[in-house]
């Protein structure tokens, strides 16, 4: 029986903060976004306390700290190192592993020949114990014949109270059916908010309803992507390792400001920074974008201030990943949306309408060599700026992108000689 596993680190950032702080074993922990703006990770205790994902920190701060909660600014040096350790342990357990995000990976368990439900569960327990012992991170494991079903299994592993953290679905119709009936349709991998509404309106409540739907009809009414989801839910493998339902559709780089900004000369270089960062991400994804968006907004929490928020888009003549094209879009948008007399608290750059760089269609009258002229320059730039920004665009800010508020950052326990944990 060919099975896959989805290994998902539980409350990853919060768990990383706990590794070197045994005193925080049972404490509620939250981790804040860049600039300490809002909550981006919570330990189980913080969830139970009622802290919502994305909650603005200043709003929950008082109650949370009073109740003995612990707050951390994001420490990506630590999370990155711990993540790579977890991934290395996992890659020793399976012949093939696909790192899906900083805290999730798919494992191909084919070579393990897990023939029964019990064997699958045993592997799950083994894997969970090793990661916990070696690295100190608790993981949740969903085992199933297809990627979409491993997501289902992972969801069910989260729900159950006994045998915590592990759930397996074998390639047996009865097994799959029971599992799917317990999963609400919006929890199915690849079913977003809009699709969820459409499917619910047509009477589907759980994953099983979706799995039973008529395939040609699904393809006609929705898409081949949803058709694949349906097949995968039935136990038919459509998504191979390293192949996922939808590549990124947009890239957003945004920040809240430590100090509110009310003039364009201060705002402009910062937004240009966001643009440069977004382009780096775009090139990493191997995508070209056709649409550049810029948004700015005042703080909705400062009700005494006049409020303004807006977003505007610029369409490029041709899909591009060249930072200069994107910056020229930003230069066009920003003066048009900026208004004097407002204190802006947040801004961001959004790139969308992607085309894969390998399937670019050229415009009829465009010169082909002209279009990609900058490829080499951008590649060189990315190489130079690989670990820290060394070469800037003139329109970027001088202080640099990383000058941000991180009041509660923990030591870089595993990546700096000067910040090692101490023992008595």
């Amino acid at each position, binding site marked *: 029986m060919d099975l896959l596993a989805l290994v998902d680190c539980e409350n990853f950032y919060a768990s990383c903060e706990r590794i*070197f702080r*045994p*005193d*925080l*074993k049972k404490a509620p922990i939250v981790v804040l976004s860049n600039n300490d703006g809002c909550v981006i990770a919570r330990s189980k205790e913080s969830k139970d306390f009622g802290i919502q994902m994305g909650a603005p920190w200043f709003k929950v701060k008082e109650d949370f700290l009073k109740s003995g909660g612990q707050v951390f600014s994001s420490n990506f040096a630590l999370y990155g190192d711990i993540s790579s*350790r977890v991934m*290395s*342990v996992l890659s020793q357990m399976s012949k093939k592993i696909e790192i899906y995000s900083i805290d999730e990976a798919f494992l191909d368990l084919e070579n393990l020949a897990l023939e029964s439900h019990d064997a699958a569960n045993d592997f799950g327990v083994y894997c969970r114990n090793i990661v916990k*012992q*070696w*690295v*100190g991170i608790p993981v949740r494991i969903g085992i199933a014949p297809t990627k979409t079903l491993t997501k289902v299994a992972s969801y069910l592993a989260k729900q159950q109270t006994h045998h915590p953290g592990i759930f397996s679905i074998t390639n047996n119709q009865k097994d799959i059916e029971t599992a799917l009936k317990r999963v609400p349709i919006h929890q199915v991998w690849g079913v977003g908010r809009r699709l969820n509404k459409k499917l619910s309106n047509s009477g589907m409540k759980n994953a099983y309803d979706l799995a039973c739907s008529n395939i040609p009809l699904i393809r006609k009414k929705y898409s081949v992507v949803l058709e694949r989801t349906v097949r995968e839910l039935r136990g038919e493998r459509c998504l191979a390792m390293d192949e996922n339902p939808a590549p990124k559709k947009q890239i957003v780089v945004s920040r809240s400001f430590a100090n509110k900004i009310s003039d364009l000369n201060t705002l402009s270089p910062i937004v240009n920074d966001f643009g440069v960062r977004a382009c780096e991400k775009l090139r990493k994804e191997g995508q070209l974008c056709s649409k550049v968006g810029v948004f700015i907004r005042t703080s909705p929490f400062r009700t005494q201030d006049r409020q303004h928020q807006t977003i505007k888009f610029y369409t490029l003549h041709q899909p591009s990943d060249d930072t200069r094209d994107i910056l020229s879009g930003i230069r066009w948008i920003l003066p048009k949306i900026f208004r004097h007399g407002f204190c802006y608290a947040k801004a961001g750059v959004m790139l969308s309408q992607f085309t894969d760089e390998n399937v670019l269609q050229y415009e009829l009258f465009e010169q082909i060599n002209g279009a990609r002229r900058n490829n*080499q320059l951008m*590649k*060189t730039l990315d*190489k*130079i700026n690989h670990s820290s920004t*060394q070469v800037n665009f003139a329109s970027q800010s001088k202080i640099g992108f990383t000058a941000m508020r991180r009041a509660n950052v923990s030591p870089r*326990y*595993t990546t700096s000689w000067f910040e*090692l*944990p*101490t*023992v*008595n």
Partner: protein
Amino acid sequence: MKLSYIGNISADSLPQNYTPFFAESVPVGFPSPANDYLETPIDLNQYLIKNQVATFLVKASGDSMINANIGSGAVLIVDRSIKPNHNDIVVASIDGEFLCKRLQLKPRIALIAENAKYQPIFIEQGHELEVIGVVTAAINIYK
């Protein structure tokens, strides 16, 4: 204007029609006979770390392990993948604190200091002892 060296750009990032031009001459002499015997320099990681992903470094503080040659400030190599045995030096957490001590499993579980000044710590009912990892080496810097 201040300039800082940021490293070399590798050849594949250069434009394709770029032809390197060397203005200086290159001495052409007898090649070093040692070239055939080149080896990589000794790597301390290889000597000190058996299982990289499960190994963490911590800094010792205090003199409680002085008789095991662990001075204050020593860097300890802690391997979380090794099963702790009786008499191993371990890093353990007890009551929310990291301690480095010798682990005693029999006749009763205790953490023993390597310094007569310190009493053994017996694990009483209701206290939780968690062995984080086994100390496989200590690095003392003398100068």
